[in-house]
């Protein structure tokens, strides 16, 4: 073995120097970031209404994250809910300041819009150019049936019809159609309700028998009595990853996929469940500020005061890292066109 000009000690010394420089740059970065944010106001621009789930997370995090961002900026929340959040996502991409003072929070479904709608989508953003920061939670969904219904399990759902409510063509309506076409779940959709709480009311007064998609968070907070008093059967959960709060015996929808293709379609469709509340920067924000804000999110999740506040508001925090978010989006965006076409085909109302 030929001995080169480097000795062990030389290597060590070099390594130390490199680390030193690295630490030095890190320090310099941090102070530059602190200098930038000091005295500034960071705006959390939320693509949903005041009082929505996303808005609750945004306001909760905004209350605590300021002290974890170098320079301790003031953090405020603004809402831009128009067109189901699409206006906000487009605005973040096209118009928001790119200096790290504007953080967006979009709906979990918006990043998937361009893939699922194709040319019909009004999205103007390029997903891979947005800079993902963090998501404080997943978006777990379940299917439920009212206790008086014949359908108590997924097995029953293959035999008996379940009347469920829908809000337009997306969301629960689309879920019911796809699952009916793909797996033979006998959903009958009554479509056109104004919102999920009106559907819940219709379930409670006997007009409907259940929901093909119900957000777990809303269900467990707004209708805790349904769970406690055994008013509903939980048929399955939709995500590939089981949600810690959902009872263990509730099966995952993925368990009912019989072929690889079915599984791939379900994963494409329900991928958005894995990233519940995506916080992001517009493109071109300097890397050191991105790093600092990502760290600040993590520090906030660990902050005892934040945890206490979240618990007081009955808000779950099971953070999703930016790497996990990117992986979910990458997988969806790399899905083959045939699979997307197939999903679009399955989304059509059943013929009968």
């Amino acid at each position: 073995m030929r001995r080169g000009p480097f000795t062990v000690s030389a290597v060590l010394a070099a390594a130390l120097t490199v680390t030193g420089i690295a630490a030095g740059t890190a320090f310099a970065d941090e102070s530059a970031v602190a200098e930038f944010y000091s005295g500034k106001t960071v705006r959390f621009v939320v693509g949903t209404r005041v009082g929505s789930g996303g808005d609750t997370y945004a306001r909760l995090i905004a209350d605590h994250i300021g002290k974890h961002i170098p320079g301790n900026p003031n953090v405020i929340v603004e809402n831009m809910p128009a067109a189901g959040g699409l206006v906000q996502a487009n605005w973040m991409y096209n118009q928001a300041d790119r200096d790290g003072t504007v953080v967006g929070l979009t709906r979990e479904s918006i990043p998937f819009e361009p893939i699922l709608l194709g040319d019909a989508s009004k999205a103007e953003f390029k997903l891979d150019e947005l800079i993902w920061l963090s998501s404080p939670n997943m978006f777990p969904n379940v299917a439920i049936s009212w206790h008086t219904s014949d359908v108590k399990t997924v097995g029953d759902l293959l035999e008996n019809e379940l009347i469920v409510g829908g809000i337009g063509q997306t969301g629960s309506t689309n879920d019911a159609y796809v699952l009916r076409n793909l797996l033979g779940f006998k959903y009958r959709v009554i479509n056109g309700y104004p919102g999920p709480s009106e559907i819940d009311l219709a379930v409670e007064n006997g007009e409907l028998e259940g929901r093909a998609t119900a957000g777990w968070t809303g269900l467990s907070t707004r209708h805790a009595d349904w769970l406690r008093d055994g008013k509903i059967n939980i048929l399955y959960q939709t995500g590939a990853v089981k949600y810690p709060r959902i009872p263990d015996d509730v099966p995952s929808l993925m368990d009912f996929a019989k072929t690889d293709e079915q599984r791939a379609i379900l994963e494409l469709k329900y991928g958005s469940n894995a990233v519940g509340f995506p916080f992001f920067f517009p493109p071109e924000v300097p890397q050191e500020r991105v790093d600092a804000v990502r760290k600040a999110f993590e520090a906030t999740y660990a902050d005892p005061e934040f945890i206490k506040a979240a618990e007081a508001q009955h808000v779950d925090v099971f953070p999703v890292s930016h790497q996990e978010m990117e992986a979910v989006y990458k997988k969806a965006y790399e899905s083959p066109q045939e699979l997307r076409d197939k999903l679009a085909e399955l989304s059509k109302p059943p013929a009968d």
Partner: protein
Amino acid sequence: MLEAALTALTMIADPFRLGVLAAGVVLGLVIGILPGIGGLAGTALLLPFTFSMDPYTAFAFLLGLGAVTATGDPIPAILFGVPGGAGSAATVLDGLPLARRGEAGRALSAAYSASLFGGLFGALMLAVSIPVFRPMMRFVQSPELLAFTVFGLSMVAVMAGKSPLRGLVAACIGLMLSMFGADPKTGTMRWTFDTLYLFEGLPLLPVVLGLFAVPELCDLAITRESISTKTKYNVRRGMVLGFADTVRNWWLVIRCGSIGGVLAAIPGIGGAIIDWIAYAHARATCRGAAETFGKGDIRGVIASESANNAKEGGALIPTIAFGVPGTATMALLLSAFLVHGLQPGPDMLGPNLSFTYGMIWSVAIANILGAGLCYAFSGQFAKLATLRYTLILPTVLSIIFIGAFEGSRSWGDVYTMLIFGVIGWTMKQLQWARPPLLLGFVLGDMFERYLFISIDRYGMDWMMRPLVIALFALAFFAFARAFWQDYRAHGGIRAIKAGLGKPNWEWSQLYSVLVLGAVAILLILASPWDFQAGLVPRITGGIALSLGALSLAGHIFYRPVGAGSAKMYYELVAQSGHLSGTTILLRAGVFFGWLLSFLVSMATAGIFVTIPLFVATYMRLEGKERWPLVIANALCLTLFVYFVFDRILHIPWPHTLLRDLLPQARVIPGV
């Protein structure tokens, strides 16, 4: 039940809680003075502060705040004809004429005493009905909701006044406007003109401000006079008179209070039409109303305001009993419930019944405090009506621009308000009643949704349900009565025949032609839609076209014989009758020019440059006001808007041209 109610009362009567409640009331009044969703944004901001309070105190505070945000609305409605919120639009009809006669003090004090008693009665109704409410709601499914909507729509017949046909046309157009945006069933984009703004339909607030506020301000600019040149009574006498009016009409207050409370409790009816329904009810039942309503009858003010305040209590019911929030503010309240470990649903009527009563008492006490405070100051407020138009107009205009922008916080809101401002002003000038348009617009969405849901779910069986039959019968009766009265007023078939004759051309008929043309264009645009998405729009459009054509033909070929219809015109009459047509058009043009320049300036340099600039130039150019006054007004208004909307409520202002050209300019707020 009684025990729970008493326990709750003693809990709320605690001096500290009462103090917190009063603080909420004062805050709510301040926020509520501004049009728009100030109450919502305010509640969102204050919500976290209530998490550390005990539940009774927290809800005393939140409900105190929420219950009175609409209490301030009658002030601009009566004084300037500008509804302070969607719920006070009906108050304008009689409130403004009263103010013009110099009776603003009486009208305000009647509005507040009616508000107070109506609110109390609403709370009482709520307290009594709460145990039966959950079982009752089992019988209110989609078909019943549809029937309520149809019943609400039938009020159009009463509101259309002199011309039922035109009223129906306006209502159909309102229905069509409500169908802009993604269709609730198939997601078809209807009349969105490829804009994102119309995805979720036209927002209510800019439409209401455009239809009702802009035309009044325009007429103010045309007549160039104060709303009222005189005050008939001194402060105290106005207050006494108004209070006496309310007491004298106690039975009306109770009826309208019940209407407000009950309708608000039905999820989906929404606050924007409750005042109209109460007003229409009063118009149909009060003695001599046909002659005096709309010309400054105090009973019109009392009817609409007693219902308006009673609904605050009623709106709590769906939230408490089912977790279905009727409004965005209620949605926030719902999250506050959860934070305090309160579960909406059966528990609120069982183990937590005393909390429920605590909330009812809070609303009742907040009403007493809020309406009482406003009542106490009503005489002072009344003096505002005598201010010169050059002082009022720029100030109120600046505020309604922001109010409209609150609709969905985009430029589209401002355009919408301008477009509906022009429509509203033209309608007012040509005596097309605006209320039916609003009613159709507000109820259209629910009508279409629940029609399809009822058919999908129940086939045709739903039509045989008792409540559906009863409400449909009432609706039919309302229409039949209106047409019968109209027919009779025209003297029966023989007189109508005799009235037919040679065509009679007028310029105003051109407007009908324009309206019909617009409807036709909308119908053509609707032709490619799929069957379900297009069904209701096509039917309403078809009805609008045929009735519109009939009405136009009547206008051209028919002249009533004899006295003709003495029925009131269900609308404010423009006060510009003494001016020539050319002057009116010219001055209206100038007014809308001012609006446009406000818009352009806001797009170029932002709201905080525009407000002082606009106020100053308007006051100087239109009225030659003295500089100290101009500067004081411009500065105060700008600072007020800056602190409330920018610093406290964090409104995301749209980016301006200046910012794009000169990025450094962003240090200026609002740029």
